[in-house]
């Protein structure tokens, strides 16, 4: 699939999700569907965060990235912001690498 076709497809998919909610406001979804949709973001973020941190080579083998994620998660909890989380996570990883050698 061509690069620009993928980008156009992403754009249409993204815009569709944003416009549908606004335009179909009167149509109520069954509560069970709304509940399912409401859990998708947390499921997505967990599915994306866990493998590189806990299984960098494809199988479960937590190493320095997993350890560095602990202070990063604490900062995420306190600040509720992405950027300080990245800074502390990378900083911890560099420090650990420097200490371990």
């Amino acid at each position, binding site marked *: *699939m061509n*690069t620009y076709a*993928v*980008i*156009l*497809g*992403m*754009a249409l*998919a*993204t*815009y*569709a*999700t*944003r*416009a*549908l*909610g*606004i*335009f179909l*406001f009167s149509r109520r979804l069954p509560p*069970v569907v709304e*509940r*399912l*949709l*409401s*859990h*998708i*973001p*947390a*499921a*997505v*973020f*967990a*599915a*994306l*965060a*866990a*493998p*590189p*941190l806990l*299984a960098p080579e*494809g*199988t*479960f083998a937590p190493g320095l*990235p997993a350890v560095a*994620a602990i202070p*990063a*998660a604490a900062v*995420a*909890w306190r600040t*509720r912001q*992405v*950027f300080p*989380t*990245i800074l502390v*996570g*990378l900083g911890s*990883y*560099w420090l650990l*690498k420097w200490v371990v050698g």
Partner: protein
Amino acid sequence: MAVVPLVPGVAVFGLVYGVLARQAGLSLAATTLMSLLVFAGAAQFTAISMWAQTSGPLIVLTSLMINLRHLLMGASMAPHLRRQPARWKAMLAFGLVDESYALAISRYLRGEGSREFFLGVNVAVYGSWVLGGLTGGVLGGLVLNPARWGIDLVFPLTFLGLLVPLLTRPVTGAVAAASAIVAVVTAAWLPGKGNLVLAILLGSGIGTLLESR
């Protein structure tokens, strides 16, 4: 303006996207065009993290799944836009991202909201996202070996930073734990990031079941 504190954060987030997109093999034009047309942080980060080893349709499907939350945000925004003409709804829908939604809906809930405020927030967030991405895209070619410095960890750390603030209820913790476990355990035998699709479906399904009791 309420959006000012968000602008540097969005621009830096956009810059990181631009750098990583170039390292994932996208041209400067494709990197910038994606920010201009898609305008979705998590979906764009995910797309470029999947770029080299995943088929195009799966990337588009993943964008759809990641952005399904905007469908609910749009639905909750809809009553406040009920009297606006369709062209305003269509325009505001393009800029409905987490940050702009949060600012705009809080204004509406205080009874101080307006389409002009929502549009202003959208334009500020969009502008800083696109310009940050363009800057990162230009710089991206200059960074030689990102993995050596752990820059690739920016991906999981970003998603960790998005996830942790959501963990305010036990059911969300169960969703995240189930999804993380499924994603890790099935990574080895579900190639092409199919493990993510399974993890997202099972994780959100478990959350729905727990809440249905």
